[in-house]
C-alpha cells in the first residue's frame, strides 16, 4: 500500500520530468535543423539559467511574478473554471497599489507597503471576482469574460496613466508619479531577487493548504467535479466561486503590486508584459497544483533567463524560446494520458 502511494506520487514527478526531457530533445532537433549544435544549446541553457549564482538569481527573478499569476488560473481551476485573465488582475492590482501609495505620501514606509499590498490584492481580487460573478449570476463564460477584462484593464490603465494619474513631467513616457524610493520593498537580503518570490512561495503553500486541507477546498473540488451534485448536497456554489475568484485575482494583484513596489516604482505601460499570460502556461503545466507551480515557474524563469544567452551565443532569434515553451506545453499536456499506467504496472509488481 505504501509502495503504491509512493509510485502514485512518483509518477507526478516522473511523467512531467520525462515530458520536459522529451521537449528538450525535440527542441535540440529543431535547433540542429538551423545548423546549431544541440549540445551547445543544452550547455548554454544550463549556463544561462542555473550555471552560476548570478544565473540562478536571474531565473528566480523571472519566476517570481509567474508563481503569483499562475495561482490566478490554478485556484479557479479547482472549481472547473478556466480563468485566463490574470494579466488584467495584475494591471488593476498595480494601479490600485500605486494609487494607495500616492494618496498617503507622508505615511511611514511600512504602512504604505502594507496598504499597497492590500490595495493591490483587493483590486486584482475584485477584477477576477467580476468574471466569477458574471459566470455565476449571468451565465457568462468566465474564460471569455476574464480575457476581455484584460483589454478593459489595459485601457483603464492607459487612460489613467495618460490622463488623470499622469505625472506631468513624464513627457515622452506617460507614467504615474513615483511611489518614492523609501516605499520600495527592495530585494531579499544578500540577493538581487525581489520579495515577490517569497510572496509567491508563501501564497502557493497557502493555496495548497486551502485546497487540499480545508473544508472550503474540499467543497470547491467537489463543485469542480460535479457542480449539480454539489448543489444537491447543499454546497454554497456561488460563494465558492466568488471567494475562489477573489483569491485568484488577489494573487495576480499582488504580483502587480510587487512589480510596482520592487521593480518599476510607478505604473506605466511597461507593466503589461504578459506575466499574466505566461502564468496560464505555468498553471496548466503544474496541472493546477499550487505546490507544483513553484518548480514549473522556476523552469520557465530559467528558460527565459537562458533565452538571452541563446540569442547572443548561438544567434537564435528570440522566438526560439517561444518554440521551446510551446513544445513543452504540448508534450506535458499530451503526457496526461500516461497517468495511471505506471501505477498499474507498479501494482502488478507488488
Amino acid at each position, binding site marked *: 500500500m505504501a509502495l503504491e502511494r509512493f509510485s502514485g506520487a512518483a509518477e507526478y514527478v516522473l511523467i512531467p520530468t520525462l515530458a520536459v526531457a522529451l521537449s528538450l530533445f525535440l527542441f535540440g532537433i529543431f535547433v540542429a535543423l538551423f545548423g546549431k*549544435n544541440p*549540445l*551547445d544549446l543544452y*550547455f548554454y541553457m544550463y*549556463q*544561462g539559467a542555473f550555471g*552560476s549564482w*548570478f*544565473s540562478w538569481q*536571474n531565473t528566480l*527573478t*523571472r519566476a517570481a511574478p509567474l508563481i503569483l499569476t499562475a495561482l490566478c488560473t490554478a485556484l479557479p481551476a479547482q472549481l472547473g473554471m478556466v480563468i485566463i485573465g490574470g494579466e488584467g488582475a495584475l494591471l488593476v492590482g498595480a494601479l490600485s497599489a500605486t494609487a494607495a501609495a500616492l494618496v498617503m505620501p507622508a505615511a511611514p514606509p511600512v504602512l504604505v507597503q502594507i496598504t499597497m499590498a492590500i490595495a493591490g490584492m483587493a483590486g486584482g481580487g475584485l477584477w477576477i471576482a467580476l468574471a466569477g460573478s458574471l459566470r455565476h449570476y449571468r451565465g457568462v463564460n468566465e474564460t471569455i469574460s476574464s480575457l476581455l477584462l484584460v483589454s478593459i484593464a489595459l485601457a483603464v490603465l*492607459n487612460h489613467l496613466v*495618460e*490622463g488623470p494619474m499622469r505625472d506631468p513631467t513624464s*513627457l*515622452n*513616457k*506617460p507614467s504615474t508619479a513615483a511611489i518614492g524610493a523609501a516605499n520600495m520593498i527592495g530585494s531579499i537580503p544578500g540577493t*538581487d531577487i*525581489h520579495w515577490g518570490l517569497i510572496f509567491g512561495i508563501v501564497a502557493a503553500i497557502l493555496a495548497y493548504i486551502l485546497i487540499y486541507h480545508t473544508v472550503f477546498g474540499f467543497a470547491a473540488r467537489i463543485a469542480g467535479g460535479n457542480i449539480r451534485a454539489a448543489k444537491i448536497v447543499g454546497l454554497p456554489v456561488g460563494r465558492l466561486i466568488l471567494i475562489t475568484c477573489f483569491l485568484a485575482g488577489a494573487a495576480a494583484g499582488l504580483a502587480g503590486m510587487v*512589480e510596482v513596489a520592487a*521593480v*518599476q*516604482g510607478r505604473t*506605466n*505601460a*511597461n*507593466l503589461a*508584459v504578459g506575466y499574466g499570460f505566461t502564468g496560464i502556461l505555468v498553471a496548466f503545466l503544474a496541472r493546477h497544483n499550487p505546490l507544483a507551480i513553484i518548480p514549473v515557474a522556476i523552469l520557465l524563469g530559467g528558460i*527565459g*533567463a537562458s533565452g*538571452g*544567452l541563446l*540569442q*547572443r*551565443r548561438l544567434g537564435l*532569434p*528570440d522566438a526560439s524560446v517561444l518554440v521551446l515553451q510551446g513544445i513543452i506545453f504540448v508534450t506535458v499536456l499530451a503526457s496526461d494520458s500516461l497517468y495511471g499506467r505506471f501505477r498499474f504496472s507498479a501494482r502488478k509488481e507488488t
Partner: protein
Amino acid sequence: MPLDQVSRRRVLQGTAALTLAGTLPLQRAFAKDTVVGFIYVGSRDDYGYNQAHAVGAAALKKLPEIKVIEEEKVPETDAVEKTMESMINLDGATLLFPTSFGYYSPHMVKLANKYPKLRFEHCGGLWGDKDPKNAGSYFGYIDEAQYISGIVAGHMTKSGKLGFVAAKPIPQVLRNINAFAMGARLGNPKATLQVIFTGDWSMPVKEAEATNSLIAQGVDVLTCHVDGPKTVVENASRRGAMVCGYHVNQATLAPNAYLTGAEWNWEELYPRFVKMVVAGESIPNFYRGGLKEGLVKVSPYGRMVSEAARKQADDVKAKLMAGGYAIFQGPLVDNKGKTVIASGTARGQTDPELEKMDYLVEGVIGATS
C-alpha cells in the same frame, strides 16, 4: 565534435578571464577585444526603430577588436536589468547600448550605479545632472528629416490631403507630426495633414486600419511614427498611395511608392562613440544632434519625386546643414487657432520648450487627446 568541446571550454575560460578583466581598470579591459552589448525592445528586423539600431550595431562589427553581442525583444522591466548583467557577467561587455526609451529609468540608472566602471549609452536623450556619470543618453532631432519629408510630400500630393499614423500624442511624436505638416505646407500651402493615433508603439492591426481609413478619405501621401512602419508602408503602396518612411529606409518594401523618409543615422554615430571610448575619451553624457551633426538623415528620393520637390527639399536641407535655421518659429498657430510661438520668436532645436510640445499646428486635422 571535438571542435565544439574546445569552443565550449574556451567560452568558459573566456568568461572567467573577462570577469577578471571587469575588475581591472577600464583601460585594461578595453585593451583586448571590447565587448559591446546591444539590447532591443522589439525584433531587430522590424524595418523600424529596432532595425535602425541593429544597423548601427552591424557597423560596429566591422571595426577591429570590437565584439558585438545582441539581444532582442527584451521588455522594459527587470528583465532588461538581468539582460545587461548577463552581458556583463557572462560575456564581459564593458559598453552597453540599451536602446529603448523605457530602459532608462529605473533600470539602466540602477545598473550604471552598480557597475561604475562600465559605460552605459541609452537612446532617448534623458540624461540629467543627477544621473550617474558613466551613463549617457543620446538622441537625434529627427523632426528635421521629417520636415524635409514633408516638403517632398507637399509637392507630390495631388489631393492636398496627407496622412500620419502615430502611436501616442507625446511631445516627441507631436514634434514629428508638426514638422512634417509644416514642411508639407512649404511645398503646398493648402495641404492638410490628417493624424490618427493608434495608442501604442506596435499595433499592426490598428496601423493597417488607420492607413485604410486615411486613404478612403482621399489621402494620397502617408507617413507614420510607430515602431515598425512596415505595415503602413506596404499597405499604403498596395492601395496606390505614396509614402514617406520612418526610422530606416523602407524603399525596398514599396519601390514605386516610397518618396523619401526620415532615418536615424546610428551606423555613423555608434562607430564614433566606440572610437571615443577606445581612445580613452569620454562620450558626452547628453548627446544630441540633427542632420548637421549626422545623427539623422533623409532617404534618397524615389524616382517619381519631381524636380521642384527635390529642389526645395535640397535647399531647405542645405540651410539646416548650415545651421541657424529654425523649423519652429513664430508666428506659429495651432490647429485650434491659438498662438503657440509668438511672432519674432524662433525656437531652435535645443530649445527645451520644444520638449514639452502638446499641440498640433495649423493644417493638422486631429486632436492630442
